[in-house]
């Protein structure tokens, strides 16, 4: 069965991805179900519109990568629904899920660990086509060269091995592999944080160009708020397994409503020494609580500079609309 090999822009209305009340718990030791669970993702709901870039930010251990993997169904959700192109993924099994994967791909952080060192670059990029039995050998070769060229790689290098490439070029190979099947969604999990600064801009620019050319939708996962602001149309902020705020990129930065978002933003130094001299960082007290036993009420209340009691320690604030296209989970939004 041959399928078309051309890149078809997705023309779809409504959200491309709908995540509804998704939980992902990892059991810890103990055995026989007695152990506590790490609540990596703890009830998360959001949409990704076709053609947009949604930035997902948060600090290490907040569950952002797990959430990306659950959306990709690389790990099953403990509970909740993930819809992609209108179809429920969590109920799919085997071949059905395999077919959907043609339309959603992931790029990983570490371009050294995510490419098989024993395969040539041509084989790595062609592997998804082979897996899905697309095209014959010659068509596949043509497609691989085409995609490599689009990703800024020399198409004559298909016979080389990953170790012959630099970090930035390897990340391009990872992107080419993701792109070869003409996906509509790409989950980019910290795609630039392992790269040299002088190379990061090349990859950011490439991702932007590819999005414009192929109408891609990105879920861009990163801890670096400056990069996220730069690439994203909308930004979602995560803390301890929950989304605390979602708004347009501009709105999140100009008018953050959740105190955690505000703290994160105030923590980033400005490149401009003039602005930097006037920045007043809000320093957080204490450490991030354990996701095994997150605080009651608002999870941020143990470190929040404006927490009020008893409400913040008892009642969990729902993620609600606070302004047009701006949701936040806080009892006192915008008060910090």
């Amino acid at each position, binding site marked *: 069965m041959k399928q078309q090999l051309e890149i078809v822009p997705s023309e779809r209305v409504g959200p491309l991805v709908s995540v509804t009340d998704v939980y992902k718990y990892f059991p810890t030791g103990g055995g026989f179900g007695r152990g506590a669970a790490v609540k990596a993702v703890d009830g998360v709901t959001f949409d990704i519109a076709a053609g947009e870039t949604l930035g997902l930010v948060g600090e290490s251990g907040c569950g952002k990568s797990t959430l990306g993997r659950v959306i990709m169904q690389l790990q099953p959700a403990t509970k909740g629904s993930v819809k992609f192109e209108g179809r429920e993924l969590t109920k799919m099994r085997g071949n059905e899920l395999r077919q959907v994967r043609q339309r959603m791909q992931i790029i990983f952080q570490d371009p050294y660990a995510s490419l098989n060192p024993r395969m040539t670059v041509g084989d790595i990029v062609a592997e998804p086509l082979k897996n899905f039995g697309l095209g014959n050998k010659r068509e596949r070769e043509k497609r691989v060269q085409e995609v490599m060229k689009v990703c800024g790689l020399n198409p004559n290098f298909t016979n080389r091995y990953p170790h012959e490439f630099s970090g930035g070029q390897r990340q391009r190979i990872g992107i080419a592999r993701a792109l070869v099947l003409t996906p509509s969604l790409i989950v980019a999990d910290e795609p630039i944080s392992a790269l040299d*600064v*002088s190379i990061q801009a*090349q990859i*950011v620019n490439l991702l932007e160009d590819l999005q414009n050319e192929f109408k891609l939708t990105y879920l861009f996962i990163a801890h670096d708020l400056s990069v996220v602001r730069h690439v994203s149309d909308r930004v979602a902020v995560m803390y301890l397994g929950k989304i605390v705020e979602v708004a347009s990129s501009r709105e999140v930065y100009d008018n953050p409503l959740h105190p955690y978002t505000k703290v994160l933003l105030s923590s980033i130094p400005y490149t401009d020494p003039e602005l930097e001299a006037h920045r007043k960082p809000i320093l957080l007290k204490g450490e991030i609580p354990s996701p095994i036993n997150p605080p009651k009420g608002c999870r941020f209340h143990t470190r929040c500079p404006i927490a009020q009691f008893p409400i913040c320690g008892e009642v969990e604030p729902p993620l609600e609309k606070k302004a047009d296209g701006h949701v936040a989970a806080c009892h006192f939004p915008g008060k910090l």
Partner: protein
Amino acid sequence: MTALSILNLVPEPGRISGGQILFKNRDVVSMTSSELHEYRGGDVAMIFQDPMTSLNPVLRVGFQIEEAMRAHSRFDKRQAKARVIPLLERVRIPSPKQRARDFPFQFSGGMRQRAMIAMGLANEPSLLIADEPTTALDVTVQAQILELLKELNRELGTAIILISHNVAVISSLCTRVMVMYAGRIVESGPTRQVFEHPEHPYTWSLLRSVPRVDERRHERLISIQGMPPDLSRLPTGCTFHPRCQFKVERCLREEPPLEEVAADQEARCWVLMRNVSKESQAART
């Protein structure tokens, strides 16, 4: 590597092949090993990017800080013991008495870096070399460590060399900046001046290659083409010329000297960004 040279700690088979390193008018390169022993960890302390690999995992944090003082002769045994808790307090470790008895794995990343800083400060050094001290940390923890370093600099008068690839971190902490490329200083000067009026194309591109959290409108990032050069096979002329978008013919043949380009500012470039018109700057973005 420059920092390791300052400590005369260049790993074999490398060596300091020439030049002088003066610390308070004494040449570090020609120090005897006992002089070096006092100098390293005594006059100059260094903290690293990854505090987990620089702390001994099987020794209690308090003991390791004490050990740093016992290795030198500034404080006797009793003084060293008594200084541990105040040092931990100084770097804002909560409940320092209990924490001194913890092992490194019981500390979070930010606390380990604090413990490293406490250890570095133990002998009251006049210089602290911080090699990417916040790169492995989350932004909120980075903010705490940067504030701590600023405070130490202000209150104890400790000079700091901060080594970082993050221009915003440099902007936050440093009064002066030196930009290095392929083993050479290509630009130096007061941070504000260099960041506002970079003269070397490498500095100029670097500043525009990272997204700014304060960006008002979406501007395409400058990407520096190519890769950093192989240090054993440096290009002829200016070492940056293969990646430079503003090079002239002379850059391929002759290496430019580091020359004063403004008050306190030096750059190693034949062209200088001030001589590149706004239009051709914009054309390269």
